[in-house]
């Protein structure tokens, strides 16, 4: 009983032989095969472009999710500085959900990158084989006599036919994987569009930001004053804030003056 690799070899050869047997004049088969090769090359190149487009789209989404995640982290920090642990918890749990999405997208991004590399290499290999086949085909046709050309046609045809089968399968698999990932990417787009994930431009106000704005209305001004006083006194703002008395406990927001939420 033959194993996997022998059987697969036989299957490829059988396919090539079947195509050759159908031909009345082998020269026509060579020309037809060459046309098919050029079509496949085009298809592989389109495949590479499609996968690259999907990859770029994922990168864009990853950036959006990551900026949203950073924003939620800042909000959590600010809420905690203002003594609102409930708000901070909410912001951080939303961030955790986003991080899960980010992790999933990163995995998909790796998959797509792998497919893109494989297809690029497949396209290069196929291009080299197609060029070699064209030269061989023309030589065979120029010196054609039915008897002597049969073997050489068979060899050239088997070689290219096998490569085409291999590359054809690679492109099929890449298309399947890309279609699955695109469906997922579409779902993320919908989430972004529906506002379930916040507008990454930061123009829209989410409920946490609105609440933070409400409760920190005067606090930012107080923090700014504290910082200026400290500067005038020759100290650093950090010392002024961190070294404050109990009444300034709420001012312990590390760098909170840097985060002017949605005050564009």
């Amino acid at each position, binding site marked *: *009983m033959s*194993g*996997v*690799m*022998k*059987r*697969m*070899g036989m*299957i*490829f*050869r059988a*396919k*090539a032989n079947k*195509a050759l047997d159908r031909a009345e004049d082998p020269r026509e088969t060579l020309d037809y095969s060459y046309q098919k090769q050029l079509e496949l090359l085009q298809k592989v190149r389109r495949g590479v472009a499609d996968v690259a487009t999907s990859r770029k789209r994922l990168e864009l989404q990853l950036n959006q999710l990551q900026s949203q995640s950073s924003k939620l982290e800042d909000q959590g920090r600010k809420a905690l500085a203002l003594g609102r642990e409930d708000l901070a918890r909410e912001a951080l749990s939303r961030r955790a959900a986003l991080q899960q999405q980010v992790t999933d997208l990163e995995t998909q991004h790796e998959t797509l990158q792998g497919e893109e590399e*494989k297809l690029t290499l*497949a396209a*290069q*290999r196929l291009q*080299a*084989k197609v*060029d*070699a*086949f064209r030269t*061989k085909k023309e030589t065979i046709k120029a010196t054609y006599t039915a008897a002597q050309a049969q073997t050489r046609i068979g*060899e*050239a045809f*088997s*070689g*290219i*036919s*096998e490569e*085409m*089968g*291999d590359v*054809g*399968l*690679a492109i*099929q698999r890449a298309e399947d994987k890309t279609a699955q990932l695109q469906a997922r990417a579409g779902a993320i787009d919908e989430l972004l569009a529906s506002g379930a994930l916040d507008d990454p431009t930061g123009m829209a106000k989410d409920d946490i930001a609105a609440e933070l704005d409400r409760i920190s209305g005067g606090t930012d001004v107080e923090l700014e004053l504290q910082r200026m006083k400290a500067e005038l006194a020759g100290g650093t703002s950090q010392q002024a804030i961190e070294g404050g008395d109990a009444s300034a406990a709420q001012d312990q927001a590390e760098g909170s003056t840097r985060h002017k939420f949605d005050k564009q």
Partner: protein
Amino acid sequence: MIVRIMGEGQWTLEDSHFDELNKLDDELLAEMETGDAEGFRRTLCALLDEVRRCGAPLADDALEPSELILPSPDATLDEVRAMLSDDGLIPG
């Protein structure tokens, strides 16, 4: 002899390596038939590594048919089964 690893290209191997490859190939077939996905993955990787280790890559523009053909490293058990079936996955 010439061996193709799908998705990677072709390698030329001395016939002396054939025994070792055959052993692994029989194991691979047995694992495929019993549905042992883990064993299948392990043996497939070993088989591919052996080909890459012992073989010399064939030039991209060589038009040689392969005597043996191996699935790509990430091929699943089901995919290989389908390739070996009558309809097969292989285009053309």
